[in-house]
């Protein structure tokens, strides 16, 4: 009996100690890990969209609560003015969710660039949404507050050949980004004033 109690006590104490230590380490590294993930996963797309900006958009970020979720926004400073914001949205693709970053100029509500970050589309076909600049560049200059559609649906985007579902998915993602932007514009504009 005494042996069993000893085993239970030792295992319990050990597990509790281990849990405490891990919680402390996790707390200490969480912010840093989040930053690293931003740099290596979303960073390339953000930098691409905000090409030529004079700040580090990954450092100059802020969060806004949108219903239950918190969204991150990355600020781009051009010619000394913080007037561009980049944020993430999702569309439904052929193989699952397509994550994309959309950059919007808050003065004229125009999209300045779009880049796919995460996807599980068919390599070489749907995956071109991420790698082919010809496709992603079409989104430049579109209005962020209007729905984005492929040409057969009455929009302006040329779908990639063989990847209609992916192209539509990206359009849905961009439209969704527009909705987020419309919904949160007052807060975005408010926060942007802090970056000069």
């Amino acid at each position, binding site marked *: 009996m005494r*042996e069993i109690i*000893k*085993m239970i006590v*030792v*295992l319990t104490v*050990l*597990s509790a100690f*281990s849990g405490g*230590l*891990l919680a402390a*380490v*996790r707390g200490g*590294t969480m912010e*840093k*890990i989040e930053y*690293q*993930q931003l*740099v*290596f996963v979303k960073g390339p797309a953000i930098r691409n969209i905000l090409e030529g900006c004079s700040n580090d958009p990954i450092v100059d970020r802020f969060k806004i609560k949108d219903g239950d979720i918190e969204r991150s926004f990355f600020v781009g400073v051009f010619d000394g003015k913080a007037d561009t914001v980049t944020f993430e949205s999702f569309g439904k693709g052929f193989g699952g969710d397509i994550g994309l970053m959309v950059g919007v100029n808050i003065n004229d509500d125009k999209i300045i660039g779009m880049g796919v970050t995460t996807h599980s589309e068919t390599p070489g076909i749907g995956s071109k949404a991420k790698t082919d600049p010809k496709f992603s560049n079409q989104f430049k200059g579109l209005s962020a507050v209007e729905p984005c559609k492929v040409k057969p649906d009455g929009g302006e985007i040329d779908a990639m050949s063989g990847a209609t579902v992916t192209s539509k998915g990206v359009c849905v993602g961009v439209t969704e980004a527009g909705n987020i932007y419309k919904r949160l514009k007052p807060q975005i504009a408010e926060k942007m004033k802090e970056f000069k």
Partner: protein
Amino acid sequence: MAKTITQEFVKGLWDEIPPFRLVLGLCPTLAVTKSVENGLGMGVAVVFVLVCSNMLVSLLRNIIPSKVRIACFIIIIATFVIVVELVMQAYAYPLFLTLGIFIPLIVVNCIVLGRAEAFAYKNGVVRSIVDGFGMGIGFTISLTALGAVREVFGSGTFFGISVFGPSFQPFTFMIEAPGAFVCLGLMLCMMNLAGNK
């Protein structure tokens, strides 16, 4: 039979060098040594886990009941592995991405558990730390050497820097899985040759 502290350390470097002599922990040895950097990174992670777990196991060896010792070892080892994982994610994210699943797999790495069971559970704290350090360094050296050979021949680079110039045709077999086996076998063979003299 008692060894000096120095001997405890040195044995991990040659006489009982983990992947080559004890032939333990082959899974990460074969899988991550596609490049020097990966081998070194993996080695450093193992050194940390091994030293910390050996120290703690040795400290607690009179408290841990022998019937549940393996469970206790696993808790201790797993804790340090997750610490390594988090720290690596925070400060060396690209390395974390390439090592991927092999970091959490240190938990079940035979060397770490083997040293806890075979050494730290029976020896004092200082000796256990020294043993862990020696074994860890031995493991790191092995992985780095294997990684160096495979990277130099397999992709013509060393730490990502080209060594043979652009005209070199990489011997890609070396960075594939079979190359790892062949390479490890040849290194074992050479170590045995050197040891027999």
